[in-house]
């Protein structure tokens, strides 16, 4: 099957030749219906936004170092925090994961194209337009905590457009996984990354419209109804948050990170050179984690109350609710990570594990996401007083940076399929370690400061009393400095990664079609793939179709 040899340079260049005017090249990208290009645009733009947001997070981190004085204006501090939160979720996490999925999943499924590619392109441009409007609204003193009524309206409209774009792209992606698989590839044979992409897409389809419903009402009421006007102390302040808080907080943010687990489950067997042990557990684990997290969204207020004030009956009731809505997602994660760990151990026992950058990035992102899920278990326990503290920001930072690490890992893993070039191994491994260290540095101090009652700034419109002059139980200066340094290091790491990849794409060595000895169908076509992906459709008879063809000693 699928052995199409397209000259790499010609394929990499896309449609227009080198003599074609630049305008034609741009037009071919803007009007493209090639899923690989659509996905790459999603990923590239989210990487650029990531760079800006990580830089902003570093500034916000350093602003908290001194409890007696801050260098940012208190009026805008709440808005800047909301820029970071909204931006990380709607401009980085979701589009980055969707972008990789749109780009790679059809190849993994052995499909010649994705379903509804023009809908995916429409989703891309709608998302970009909406994101631009959201950024413009903040510049106009809008958004949560904003003081300009028109700016607040602009924010609501922009966020609504962003959501519509993401739902449109997610619909095309889910349809692809459900309808465009190669013959023989039943749903239980799809690669873990494709499965996680399906779960993410379905989660977006069922959750985002609910938020859109709230945005539509709030927009109508704020712009035309006047009931929640700025003068009435309404939306200019903190009143937007109750409407969108669920989409910006844990446990829903765990859903956005589901493809992280799919990526880890994808790369571990490849670099352990083994077939996935207990493969069904991987698929079930992803499904359980997503379903339980979605259930938890409706139950965020169910926490364990102050123990001493509860009767035995209430204690039991609280514990049951807590276990059902908080421990079940972790159970899903444990099932999945158990299978992945067994696969890795199997490779270590056979001395077949290769330490490569994608594996390092993948394991790092899994560690971060696991920490986030486990750390989140403490938030609903009221006796710990962690809700509303920086602890919650620490958990969020873990989730965001797990997605970032998985994103960087995905670029390093599938770079051949993007541009036909191999990325340098050692620098990438150093960047992976740097990114993991930066993520830990940016998150862990906030977890500690949360126990010291440092107030969080998520959902805050005016920051007086929260940034300076708050009571404390320990010296937080060092911890806050470490957080700022962590975000700064992450910014440098991302910048270094982008520079490295651009250099490699321009001058790096050409990659082979299957440099990692892969197991799934994207490695059965040329690097980069031609426009229609495969010349012939393959017949698939196992979850690892390429491994079936390789000599037993050479791979799994």
């Amino acid at each position, binding site marked *: *099957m*699928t*052995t199409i040899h397209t000259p790499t340079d010609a394929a990499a260049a896309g449609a227009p030749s080198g003599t074609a005017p630049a305008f034609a090249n741009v037009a071919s990208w803007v009007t493209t219906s090639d899923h690989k290009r659509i996905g790459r645009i999603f990923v590239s733009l989210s990487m650029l936004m990531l760079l800006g947001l990580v830089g902003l997070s570093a500034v916000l981190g350093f602003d908290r170092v001194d409890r007696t004085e801050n260098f940012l204006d208190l009026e805008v501090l709440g808005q800047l925090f909301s820029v970071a939160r909204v931006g990380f979720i709607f401009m980085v996490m979701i589009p980055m994961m969707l972008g990789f999925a749109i780009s790679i999943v059809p190849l993994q499924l052995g499909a010649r194209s994705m*379903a*509804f590619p023009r*809908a995916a392109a429409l989703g891309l441009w709608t998302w970009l337009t909406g994101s631009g409007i959201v950024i413009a609204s903040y510049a106009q003193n809008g958004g949560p905590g904003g003081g300009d009524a028109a700016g607040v309206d602009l924010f609501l409209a922009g966020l609504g457009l962003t959501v519509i774009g993401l*739902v449109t792209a997610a*619909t*095309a992606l*889910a*349809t692809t996984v*459900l*309808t*465009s698989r*190669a*013959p*023989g590839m039943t749903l239980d044979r799809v690669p873990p990354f494709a499965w996680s992409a399906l779960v993410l897409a*379905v989660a977006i*389809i*069922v*959750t*985002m*419209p*609910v*938020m*859109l*419903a*709230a945005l*539509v*009402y709030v927009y*109508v*009421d704020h712009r*035309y*109804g*006047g*009931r929640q006007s700025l003068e009435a102390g309404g939306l200019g302040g903190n009143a937007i948050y109750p409407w969108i808080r669920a989409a910006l907080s844990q446990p829903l943010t765990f859903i956005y990170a589901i493809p992280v687990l799919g990526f880890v489950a994808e790369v571990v067997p490849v670099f352990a050179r083994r077939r996935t042990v207990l493969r069904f557990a991987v698929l079930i684990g992803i499904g359980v984690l997503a379903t339980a997290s979605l259930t938890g969204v409706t139950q965020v207020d169910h926490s364990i109350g102050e123990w001493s004030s509860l009767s035995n009956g209430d204690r039991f009731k609280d514990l049951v609710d807590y276990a059902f809505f908080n421990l079940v997602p972790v159970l899903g994660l444990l099932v999945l990570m158990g299978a992945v760990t067994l696969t890795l151990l199997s490779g270590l026992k056979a001395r077949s594990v290769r330490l490569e950058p994608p594996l390092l990035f993948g394991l790092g992102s899994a560690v971060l996401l696991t920490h986030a899920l486990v750390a989140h278990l403490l938030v609903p326990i009221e006796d710990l007083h962690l809700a509303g503290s920086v602890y919650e920001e620490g958990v969020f930072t873990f989730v965001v940076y797990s997605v970032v690490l998985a994103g960087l890992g995905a670029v390093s893993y599938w770079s051949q399929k993007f541009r036909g070039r191999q990325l340098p191994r050692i620098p990438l491994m150093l960047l992976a370690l740097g990114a993991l260290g930066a993520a830990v540095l940016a998150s862990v101090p906030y977890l500690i400061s949360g126990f010291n009652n440092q107030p969080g700034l998520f959902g805050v419109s005016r920051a007086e009393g929260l940034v300076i002059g708050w009571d404390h139980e320990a010296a937080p200066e060092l911890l806050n400095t470490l957080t700022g340094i962590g975000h700064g290091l992450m910014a440098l790491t991302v910048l270094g990664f982008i520079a490295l990849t651009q250099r490699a794409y321009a001058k790096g060595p050409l990659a082979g*079609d*299957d440099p990692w000895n892969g197991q799934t169908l994207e490695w*059965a076509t040329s690097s980069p793939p031609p426009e229609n992906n495969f010349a*012939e*459709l*393959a*017949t*698939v008879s196992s979850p690892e*179709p*390429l491994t079936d*063809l*390789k000599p037993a000693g050479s791979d799994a």
Partner: protein
Amino acid sequence: MLALPPAPAPAPRRQMIVGTALFSAAASMLIGGMTALWFHFRTEPGLWKPERLVVPEVATNVMWITALFSLVMVQWAVYSARRGDRQHASVALGVVIILGLAHLNSQAYVWRRIELPVKGDTPYNSMFYAITATLFALVLVGVVYAVVAAFRFIGGRTKDRETVSGLALYWYVLAALHTVVWFSVYVTK
């Protein structure tokens, strides 16, 4: 490069129907979220609906009946398309489009007759326009979908039955959503 055994071109896997089902799920969540908000505000203590508000119930009931009747027409289109009957399918799709436009026209009439300012003392006013305008937009999508299906069929793609089936699925979901909105907004108020 390794080569797997080639496979024959796979049979179509109902992309339009699956895509429409997913879009319908999103639309259902959108209206579901709106309805949840409606009842959330409605159960709040204090005044809800403006006292002198008169809902043109004849128009709203006719709208609902129109939505149900359009299901017969869209099912006629599916039946005709499966039999390859271009003439009947085209007529049925045309009637679906006309009924969709009639629905939009009725909604505009209700907005005009109800004489309800968007600005009010309770969330009722904003909520009324938010939920009905959202349904209006979803019906508009359905009309565009029907126009595309009709043009494809009239243009000679008579074997493209999946698009008509997808349209029918969307129209069924739309009728269900309309029933929810009609019951919430115009019956229980």
